Every structure is written in C-alpha cells, then in structure tokens.
C-alpha cells in the first residue's frame, strides 16, 4: 500500500526531526544563504542560510500535529452530532443542524482571525479554528449518510430485535459509514495542512522561528525568481503528503469493506 508507506515515512521523518535534523533549524548563517542543493545541504539553504531539509523535516511535525488535532476535533464532535441528529430527528435534529449552519457560516480564516484577536496568534489557535471549521463538515456527512441507513431493512430488523437508537447507531450506522468517514478524514487532513499553511502565512498559525511548510512556501514567494527551489520543496512536501493521505484513505476504505476483502 503506497499510501500507508508514504504516511509512515512522513511520520517517521517528523518524529526523527524531534531528536535529530542534519542542521539546527534556527541557526542563521547569512553568508551561506540561498545555496542551491548540494552535498552538504541536500535541498539548499534559505534566505537566512538555514538548511531547507532540516526545516522541512521539522515543519512536518507542525503540519501533522496541527492537522491531526484539528481533524480529530472536527470528527470527534461532528460525527456524534450528525449521528445524534439522524437518530433522534425532530427538535434535536433541528437544533444540531442550525448550530451547524451557524458554524459553517464562519470560514476557517475568519474564525482564526477572531480567535487570534481574542487569544493571540499561535499554533493552538490555528488548531481550534481549523477544528471548528471541520465540525459541520463531519456532522453533515454523518447525518446524511446515517439518515439513509435508518431507512434500511437491517435497521428495522434491529428495532424488531429490541435494539435502542444508541445501540443501533453503534452497531449498524457507524460501521456502515466508517469508510466514508475515513476517506473524508484524509481529505480534511489534506485541507487542514493547506489551511495551516495559509494561516501561518498570515502570521496567525505557527510562529517563527518554528518552521511550517506553509510559512516556508509563503516566505519563498518573494524569492520566486532568485531561488525557486525554496517554493518547490515545501510545495512538494505538501503535495506528497496530501497524495499519500488520499491513497491511504482509499486503501483503508477497501480494507474495511468485507465485500472487497476476498477479492484481493
């Protein structure tokens, strides 16, 4: 499974950067700035002479941590809300979905600005902002998929068997939408990496001198003609990660489907 391999390498690199990077990530070496890739600096150096490979490795930690927690918040709150709305209908559903619309009305960027205005900039606030933005995505997806499942005969059969709504949700609804949710999670994870990059560019996310792929990408913008590799490498890192996650999502979906399991 390519997706799994890519994701594992990414995680390994991120973990490695916590204890070791080829060069210290924050040491400025102005005379050695903007070097092209070489034997000493595999991916070259940036406008302050810092090693790009080291910063990409360390940036992986930020990108992964922020996205993971943000998607975790979104799915952790959104999925139960959506499942609850589908199981209870009526007033509960109405309240959940209006709350959802309310959250959805605030784009991630706007809520990030608001949160920053209240609590100051930083990675944690970026996490919260992206996380909140993810809640309605998961709530809607879950509710929609769950509603159609509640009409199915096997759910009716579970009701004839005397199962309650909570138990049916856990036994039948969630397992049947798990693959859908996992695919959506990998998509949201990729989006979160991009969102974190965007927020860091605005100075609302990861704060210097901590590296983040988005920050690197955007710092490279002004040097596009002088040193295009500075934009290419973090861009590639984001692309490979997003691609790997999507492949992982597809692979997991197939793995979770008993109908496909025999075919491999």
């Amino acid at each position: 499974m390519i997706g799994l391999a890519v994701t594992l390498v990414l995680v390994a690199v991120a973990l490695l950067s916590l204890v070791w990077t080829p060069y210290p990530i924050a040491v400025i070496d102005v005379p050695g700035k903007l070097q092209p890739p070489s034997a000493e600096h595999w991916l070259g150096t940036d406008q302050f002479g810092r090693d790009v490979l080291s910063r990409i490795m360390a940036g992986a930690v930020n990108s992964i941590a922020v996205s993971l927690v943000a998607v975790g918040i979104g799915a952790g709150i959104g999925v139960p809300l959506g499942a609850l709305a589908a199981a209870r209908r009526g007033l509960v559903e109405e309240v959940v979905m209006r709350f959802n619309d309310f959250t959805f009305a605030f784009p991630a960027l706007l809520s990030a600005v608001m949160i920053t205005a209240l609590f100051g900039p930083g990675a944690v606030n970026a996490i919260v902002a992206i996380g909140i933005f993810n809640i309605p995505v998961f709530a809607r997806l879950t509710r929609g998929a769950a509603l159609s499942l509640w009409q199915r005969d096997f759910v009716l059969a579970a009701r004839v068997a005397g199962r309650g709504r909570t138990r049916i949700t856990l036994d039948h609804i969630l397992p049947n939408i798990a693959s859908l949710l996992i695919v959506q999670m990998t998509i949201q994870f990729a989006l979160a990496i991009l969102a974190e990059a965007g927020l860091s560019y605005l100075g609302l996310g990861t704060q210097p001198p901590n590296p983040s792929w988005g920050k690197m990408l955007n710092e490279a913008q002004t040097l596009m003609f002088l040193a295009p590799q500075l934009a290419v490498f973090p861009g590639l890192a984001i692309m490979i990660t997003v691609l790997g996650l999507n492949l992982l999502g597809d692979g997991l979906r197939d793995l979770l489907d008993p109908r496909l399991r025999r075919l491999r």
Partner: protein
Amino acid sequence: MTVTAPLLRVEDLTLDYTLPRRRLFEAAPRFRALNAVSLQLAKGESLAVVGESGSGKSSLARAVLALERPTAGRVELLGRDVYALALGPLRALRRHAQMVFQDPYGSLDPRRKVGWIVAEPLDALEQGVAGDERRARIAEVLESVGLKARDAEKFPHEFSGGQRQRIAIARALITHPDLIVADEPVSALDVSVQAQVLNLFMDLRERLGLSYLFISHDLAVVRHVAERVAVMCQGEIVEEGMVEEVFRRPQHPYTRKLLAAVPRIGGARRGEPAATAAP
C-alpha cells in the same frame, strides 16, 4: 372461541403518514395508509394479507410490530397493548413476535457476520445467553433453516438470495417466537427459489407451531401458508375469510379483480378449482 387472549388482536388501527409540507405556512398534508384495520390471530393460526402495491400491507406489518406510532386504534400481542407498554415490557414482548423482510439484500447488515446477525435478537432480548450456549443456539437455528453451523462465520455477500432469506428467517426464529410477520418474503426471489423458501415456511410452521402474518401480493402463494386471508385495498380490509372460501366465492369486487389477475400457478393442486375463479 378461545378462552385465552388471542396471539394478535388489531383493533381499528389507523395510521397516517405526515408528508413534507408544500408551503411554509400550510399544515403538513397527511396520508392515511391504514384506515380502521381490525384483525385477529389465534396461536398457531396463520393469516395472509393480500393487496396490490400501496394498499398498506407493509404499514400494517410495521404497525403490528410497534415500529410506527398509529394515529388511532390498538395492537395487542398476547393480550398486551404494545403501544401502551413502556420500553422494558415491550422489549420482553418482542421475543414473541419477529419479522422477515422482503428484500434479503437489504435486511442483512453487510458488515456483520451471519452468526452476529442471526444472534442479534437473542443478544438483545435474552440477556445472559453467552458462550457455548449462544453458539449452540446459532448453530441450531441455522440448521433448522437448512444452512450449516459454520455459515455463521461468513458474511451475507457470500450467499445467494434464497440463502440470505434463510438467514433472515433464522434470525426471526432464534428467540422461539409465536408470531412471525413476513412482509412479501419470497417476492424478491427467483421463481425457482420461491418454492423452496415457501416450503421452508410451511415446514417450520408445522414443526414449531408458528403463526404467520404473511403478507403477499401474490395470491398463488397465499394458499400454501395460511388458512385465512384478508384482502386489503387502500388501507382497509375489504374482505376476510378462509382462503378456500374467499378464492371460491370472492364477495368484494376488488378481490375478484385480484383473483382474475392471478396466473394459474399450481392452481389445480389437490383437485381444487383454479385460482381464477372470477369470470
């Protein structure tokens, strides 16, 4: 006739569905799917319900098993009003009445193994049955519908339509119910398989003393599984009686129309007149 309460008694059951409102400030329109339906079933007796599509047969099935809230009327199972019961006692009552659905592809959760599916009513309604005893009950019920004990380890997609319906029947039987509500249980199956599954229904009834509320739009099927038949039309029972009687001398014009539409499948069985009794 009987001193004890009948197995099932349905009295003036009326069920309205609320449809989505067409305009914001208009009252939501309602559709009457069941209109004052009454019927009775003694233990061991079987009743077929026939009627064309949309006549309310499935609505009746769901209402009898307390899956819809009726607008009016009552449903009594073993003498107890199912819509007046609290959750606990209703659950206790569910052991005695189970259901078989029309579409064996939709009634089995694709993500659960057959053993889990079949045991669901057991796990929910007879707490404390576990381990070897549970495994034995699953094996027993699978074998009673003509499947093998080791089929419990497989997933539904590994079975054919007819086998899946056997799994659904096994699930309905595992709590040893008195009543099985079967909503068109053979109409989604191949004609060749229909006969096998019908035979299983007849066989099980004989062996276990079951009562069926057997829903069908196919009159040819009815005479094999029930001694009485109720004819439904637009949410009402327009005629009810012994199967032979209704087939020989249909009283209601709607019944005559239904009978006229039946192809002669096994009509000459036991030397009786063909099902097309109407002119």
